[in-house]
């Protein structure tokens, strides 16, 4: 009478994921059920088509970019560890976050890492700069056919003008952080996971 979901996920793995992402034991098993229900091919990994099958994601204007964020460079499959690592960015930041190992890198759901996740939505070629073209691409995805090229171009130009401080006509990560410093990133990029 064992628990079907956890028999495929060993206790050691759950502990490792817990340490890496900060999710609780029950949250990990619940998300594992979710992962297996999305995995129609039943091979332990998700492909882009598996994500596309979620209707609410398929109608999201930035759906493709979000799906891309799950897949490491050049790969077509994501396993459960990778899935959890990406979702971990959206854990709420807790005030009493116990960081046992202070020499290790910051938790995945820190403000900086959340902003980095958002930055990478824009920065498609991963060169740590958002160029005018990349900004235009994302804008086009969000507005569809409802705004003309000229108007969209001027919106992009104005945004870069306001954000660019070193005059290279691109937005670097630090400039991006500066633009968003007044935004409540913790609230906008956190999902309330139930225990």
């Amino acid at each position, binding site marked *: *009478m064992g*628990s079907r979901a956890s028999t495929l996920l060993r206790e050691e793995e759950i502990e490792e994921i817990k340490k890496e992402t900060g999710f609780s034991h029950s949250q990990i098993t619940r998300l594992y059920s979710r992962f297996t229900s999305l995995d129609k091919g039943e091979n332990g990994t998700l492909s882009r088509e598996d994500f596309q099958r979620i209707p609410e*994601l398929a*109608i999201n204007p930035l759906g493709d970019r979000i799906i891309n964020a799950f897949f490491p460079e050049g790969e077509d499959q994501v396993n459960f560890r990778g899935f959890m690592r990406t979702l971990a960015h959206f854990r709420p930041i807790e005030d009493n976050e116990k960081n046992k190992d202070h020499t290790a890198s910051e938790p995945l759901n820190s403000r900086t890492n959340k902003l980095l996740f958002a930055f990478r939505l824009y920065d498609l070629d991963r060169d740590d700069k958002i160029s005018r073209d990349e900004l235009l691409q994302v804008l086009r995805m969000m507005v*569809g056919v*409802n705004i003309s090229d000229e108007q969209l171009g001027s*919106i992009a130009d104005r945004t870069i003008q306001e954000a660019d401080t070193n005059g290279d006509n691109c937005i670097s990560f630090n400039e991006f952080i500066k633009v968003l410093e007044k935004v409540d990133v913790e609230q*906008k990029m956190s999902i309330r996971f139930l225990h």
Partner: protein
Amino acid sequence: MEDLWCVALGVFQLWLFVVVFFITLPAMFGLSLGVTGLYIQILVKILEWATLRIQRGRQEQPSVPVPLPNGIIERAGGSMAEEMGRPGCGRFAPSDALYFCKKGLESIADDQVTQRFSSEELASWNLLTRTNQNFCYISLRLTVIWVLGVLVRYCVLFPLRITLAAIGLSWLVIGTTVVGLLPESSVKNWLSELVHLTCYRICARGLSATIRYHNRENKPQKGGICVANHTTPIDVVILANDGCYAMVGQIHGGLMGVLQRSMVRSCPHVWFERSEMKDRHAVTSRLRAHVAAETKLPILIFPEGTCINNTSVMMFKKGSFEIGGTIYPVAIKYDPRFGDAFWNSGKYHMVSYLLRTMTSWAIVVNVWYLPPMTLQDGEDAAQFANRVKSAIARRGGLLDLAWDGGLKRGKVKDSFKEQQQKMYSSFILGQNGINNQ
């Protein structure tokens, strides 16, 4: 050897005697010996005890996961403008992408649609192996009860139910064929109704079905159209236990085909060839002709078009609402504690589905007849369909979703994404910005 045969034969005869006289005959006349009622009461007591035991076990072992029937995440409901957190008015901010990002990740963690196409997760284990998703070993007593349950279900109930189902279906075929030989008359119609009713009642006993009908004054009348939410092919048996309907559907081969062809001999059902089904116009005109002849039985239609898991009602296809005539909505809600009635057609074939249903505890279902509705002025078929859907969802305690049940197999239409894009565009351009292009 001889003795063994005699004994076996004797047992078999006794078995048949019991089945026929104590179950089949009372069922045919709509009477009940109260055995099923008693069985359900005992079952409820056992399940309640099991729930408490599991809750206690959960407190002792904190690593046992808690079932979350309301989802993995808690969403903040709000419009796009509210959640952007800033006034729009003609500006774009790089933080806007965060809104779509969060919505996207939320839907990956838990979405409203894909969960409707698989069985509902139970709040507490109901002692069936198949629903043992997140439950693990709690106590010896629970395990013993579970083993007893398996024995009772597979060795006692299952053979009984198979026998009843076989009797019921063969009676349907024979009875309708015989009635079909009679000339058209009111006697024929009355006999045909009798045959259908008795057969469905026997089949319902074959599933240990306990059906509670509410508001029977609203029962569908002749010349009307009955619409209901769809969970399983057994919906037909459930509804037909209380009245006769003209079924609508595609003609199949095999056993289903035999049933369909014999049924149509005694009273006019509407069966379509596969090729005809594609032609919406032909379908609508045939149904319209049936409804116009006011003496014919009410048509039974499931506008969702596919089986949903009985936690929600998905989009009603407007075709059924364009036929005209009075619509009699019916809400059907199964009690998930006693067995999972949902047919996951992608996962199980019809035969394995029936086997699973016949080895569940029982089928307990509430049927509500809603007051009849008609198309109102200034309303088109799609709006009428939505109105009926909301009424059914409200009555049955189901979630009212606008998503199409066809998403079970197909992709979502691009127009929904375009809708989102349009909304965002008008947000950043200010309300009347779209015209300033």
